[in-house]
């Protein structure tokens, strides 16, 4: 299968502990891939190595064949990797629309001097349209002019996802997107993610809500202690003894 995002032999060590220990992972376009596993399995570290927030000790990350390893985060973002954070990171001083627009208008660098001299932005109309379309898709249009800092947690998550989508990425990484959302919002999110995948986006998500995972994901990978232990269809993976031990044994 031709993976849109391909991770090979990724390792990240902290002191003597390998948080990510030689992970190979394909995130194909047009599908939702879920990464599950207990806390401390290295899922978020893996994310950080893909986005460039953290630097992997070994291994490569490629996006549609283009090598990303070693690039700083904002360059990866511009190359088509979009991501959200486990702890919500919004621009509290901007409105919902403006938050999303920041995602749209920084895809390509613009000469800083042009901004300083106050030259009109040639892409202004386009980014405004993109932002509006994304808000519509996520059902956020009524809240367009509300300062993002005033929103409740679940809605903040949606705005964060909207900001990621506005960059029109090739691959979308979501770190626990369903946490803090109510049931309506989760249903809406699942619907949106399915639609995005149908449009050809590659989606990788880390999630602890197993109902959500089985409902939305095409593939699931179980990560334990820095390694991918099991891969397959979500229900298959969750039915396997290893996963049952982790998820059922816990409760």
């Amino acid at each position, binding site marked *: 299968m031709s993976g849109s995002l391909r991770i090979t032999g990724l390792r990240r060590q902290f002191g003597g502990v390998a948080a990510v220990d030689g992970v190979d992972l394909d995130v194909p376009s047009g599908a939702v891939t879920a990464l599950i596993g207990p806390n401390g399995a290295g899922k978020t570290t893996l994310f950080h190595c893909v986005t460039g927030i953290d630097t992997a000790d070994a291994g490569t990350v490629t996006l549609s064949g283009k090598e990303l390893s070693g690039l700083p985060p*904002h360059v990866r973002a511009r190359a088509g990797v979009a991501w959200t954070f486990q702890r919500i990171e919004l621009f509290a001083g901007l409105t919902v629309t403006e938050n999303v627009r920041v995602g749209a208008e920084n895809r390509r660098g613009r000469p800083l001097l042009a901004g300083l001299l106050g030259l009109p932005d040639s892409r202004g109309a386009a980014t405004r349209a993109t932002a509006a379309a994304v808000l519509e898709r996520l059902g956020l249009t*009524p809240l367009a002019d509300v300062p993002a800092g005033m929103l409740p947690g679940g809605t903040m998550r949606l705005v964060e996802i909207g900001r990621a989508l506005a960059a029109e990425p090739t691959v979308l990484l979501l770190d626990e997107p369903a946490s803090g959302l109510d049931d309506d919002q989760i249903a809406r999110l699942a619907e949106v993610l399915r639609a995005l995948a149908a449009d050809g986006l590659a989606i990788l998500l880390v999630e602890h809500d197993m109902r959500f995972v089985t409902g939305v994901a095409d593939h699931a990978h179980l990560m334990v202690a820095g390694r991918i232990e099991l891969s397959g269809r979500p229900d298959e993976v969750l039915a396997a003894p290893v996963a049952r031990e982790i998820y059922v044994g816990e409760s």
Partner: protein
Amino acid sequence: MFYAGLALNGLAIGCVAALAAVGLLATYRVTGVFNIAFGAIAVFCAYVMWQCVRVWRMPVSVSALLVLGIVAPGIGLVLERLVYRPLRRSGASGLLVATLGVLVLQLGLVFLLWGGRSYVDAPSLLPAGDVRLVGTLRLSNATIVELCVVALVAGLLTVLLKATRVGLMVRAVVDDRDLAEALVPADRLAAGGWAFGSFLAGLAGVLWAPIYHLDPYSLTLTVLETMGVAVLARLTSLPVAVGAALAIGVAQTELTAVHPAERWQGLVDAFHTNLFVLVLFAALMVVPRLGVRGSGAGGGVAGGLGGLQRPGARRTSRSDLVGRLPFGALSLVLTLPLFFDPADLRAALAVPALAVVFVSLVVATGYAGQISLGQAGYAGLGALFMAKLAEGGTPWLVALFLGPLLVVPIGWVTGYPAIHRRGLYLALTTFATAAVVARFVFAQPVFVGGLAIARPRGFTDDHWFYGLELACLVLALLLVRSLHTGPLGRALVALRDSEPAALSAGVDVRRLKVFVFACAAGLAGLGGALTTLAAQAFNPTDFDPVQGMVWFAAVAVWGVDSAMAAVVGAAALVAVDVGTVQGVSGLLIGVGAVLLGRFPGGISALVQRAGDWLGTPPRRSVGERRLSPAGRALAAQLRERRAE
């Protein structure tokens, strides 16, 4: 033998520096706050001591007991209770501004109470005379006692912190006061730490004053310079700090023996008198991965400016009439000096120039999130470049703008290392830059000697020149405007609110920061050039690094977010300086900065809140006015949910 003699002299200098460094580090170790005001507290105590002995005729021993036993620890206790305890959650920047505030406040007090006069008859605690070592080598008793004090404090503190229960508790409080509160008497320990830190400051001041002149600035500056030693010790190791201070002291005197060719002598002299500044600068450039308490999760969230800005404050401009009203009023007020009598107009010339510098601070700190104590350096460079260009035949009016433009690349180069630092270290780096520029450029006759300053043709009259200044201020405000509108403005707010999220959106955070920092340097240069033209002379004291700190504190008090508040602040500062005695403005700024933790965002935020309260119809929240009916319903729903 000659060099050994020099080394012993150097030891005396190093000793004084070591005392300051140990005091700084000890305070930091027991309170978690890097007390920039250490020197100012020392100066204040030394002045009180002088007052007791020379004016009130008290015996030296009684005075010493009073100053070191009551006054100094008392200052610490008061500061802890009134300033630092309320600020404990506001992160590195909030604390930094507070310590700056204490510095400015104490200096203001010294000016107010003693008129800023310097005295040579400070009473000495130390035995006179010296001890003969070998041959002609002599070591003064004062140096010996100081060495003992330094060793004693460093040794005792190390043992106390590492090996005792109290030390463990103190470390817990410094690490995480909120957490420690549940287990140990955190408030009492913190108060004890501050009392001890201030006691050390008082001790340093009292020991110091008789060796040097007792004057408000020298001790404050020396302490600021010895921060290099503290940085070399990574703010932790007391032995490293003592060793480094002594070594630099010795190196400084040994350098006096170096006599190169005539034309390099000036440079060597500059080196040996400013070695501590150089070490501070070099240490900040070279020492990798400097971490500082309080710049982590707590302070780092809001772009590292916790306490300086009102959380979630909106910056994108509101273009309604109400928003423009104060601007109109302000421009009206700014044109008033044109109708003043000549003397008052002359005084008012300082306002637009200072306003441009203040606006540059708003750009650097409010917009790029970079604490900059170094604006004085860039301002001075702008003035200097202008003068040099004019000397080379460029018309003054062209030079006025070309000079500051030349500062932009310098801001770029010096801003680059600065942005890798955060919080305290960033502040120190910018301060060190300004200090190096002040000592190696502004203080060197080679560069500033014989500069003739003339106003541009057609603007020699004060009225016309004031008009030119206003035009420059408008230009600066226009640049600021484009920094908070459009994609660039949004990217900057994004950067301030969440750096990781800005990166994830593709914002080139580093480049943007350096760019804005460089713009701010250029603006400061313009302000400096105007200052020089207004005075029709290049005064190095206008661009003193300590001046940069006062400016920063003033802008923080008025609100780092608001360019308009910066303009008002500049006018107020000049008015207070002209209308009252020296020291009052420092006192006011100091009090404001110290209280900043209680009203984040400064005066502008207070005014804005008052305006919001007066201007908004009752109970309709911010976004609602522009919402569709469906949106209003949703917003109501959200409110309900939040109420639950």
